[in-house]
């Protein structure tokens, strides 16, 4: 099973996202900020990183940049999931190493269709 690491400082959002991703057939791990996410990646590199941009300690964009430098970190599919919907911000996030971007609020259909176009679903 593919592993998806869900990173968000809101426990509620992590739960919602984790449930959606589980239903899509993924193993799920959770982390509450970028620093903890990178620790988790060092132990087991996920296939997908679903990550908020604004978080205490280490935000999603800096996390993605650090991840890309780790061994195997270039292969991870990075999906940002954030409230910010300004096109300039989104573009910058993608340039920093994101493959996709989901604007909150999201639902299961949005996540499913984004994973489908990223070729993550069987």
């Amino acid at each position, binding site marked *: 099973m593919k592993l998806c690491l869900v990173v968000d400082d809101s426990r509620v959002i992590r739960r919602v996202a984790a449930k959606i991703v589980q239903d899509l057939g993924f193993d799920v791990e959770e982390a509450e900020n970028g620093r903890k996410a990178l620790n988790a990646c060092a132990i087991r590199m996920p296939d997908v990183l679903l990550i908020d941009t604004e978080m205490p300690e280490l935000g999603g964009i800096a996390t993605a940049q650090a991840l890309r430098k780790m061994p195997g970190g270039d292969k991870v599919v990075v999906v940002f999931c954030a409230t910010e*919907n*300004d*096109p300039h911000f*989104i*573009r910058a996030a*993608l340039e920093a190493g994101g493959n*996709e*971007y*989901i*604007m909150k609020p*999201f*639902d299961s*259909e*949005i996540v499913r*269709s*984004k994973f*489908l*176009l990223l*070729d993550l679903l069987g």
Partner: protein
Amino acid sequence: MAPDDFEYAARLMKERSGLVLTRDKGYLLENRLMPVVRQHKFKSFHELVAALRTGDAALQSSAVDAMMAKDTAFFRDWKPFVHFAKVVLPNITHARREKKLFRVLCAGVSTGQEAYSVAMTIRDAAQQFSGWRAEIIGVDLSPTAIAAASNAHYTQFDVQRGLPIKSLLRSFTKDDAGWQLNSDVRDMVKFQTWNLLTDIYPLGRFDVILCRNVMVYLDLQAKIDLLQKISRSLADDGVLYLGTQEPLTGVSAAFRPVNRDLGIYAVHRLDKVVLSSLAVPQKH
């Protein structure tokens, strides 16, 4: 709901749109028509049906419109659009290299996402098509859906269902209420209200027809007739995209499956050699 109210409304829907409603769908009829009841200030569903019975054409059209399932999404199911980009477009560039014209019909286009997905795909392959004319036509029975399609303005939810973020950034402009499709893509598509129960040949011949998630709702005879019309409107080497969940088996001999799971069919007049070149790429 009174049985003869159901009978009357169900018959109206079937005659006007081909939609079949079995008896157990009374709740659906009532749910979907409630907005019409309210909008016209009727006191009940029964009153609406009574007014429909008087033959009020505008009211009947609104009721039929309200009854249509209009669910849709950009690049719905994704893989059929990958096939369109990777297989069909290159085939067309080759086969139509003299005429430099190709035409796509989205039959039952709802609020436009499907037609704009086709347009964005063609636009992204623009180098192959410089000097070409691509005509994309979207038709639907529902005037409200066609109006929304022409407006090309979508909510933040709409633009996230199936649309890659890069396509959003490239082709839409954000405003206070949502996202507006830019005119370069918008101008590639023409929309018209059209009832698919009537002839479609006035729309001309097409190289590709998408009629996705429309026939599932139609009664068998309407389905057979529509497939017949589609097969006549398609070029000999044309391709038909149905929904991924509506196999043609046993309904029409006019088509051969290219990929059943993706709902892709070729016209039966086609020889085997061309058919195999339509095969879906294994990995994209």
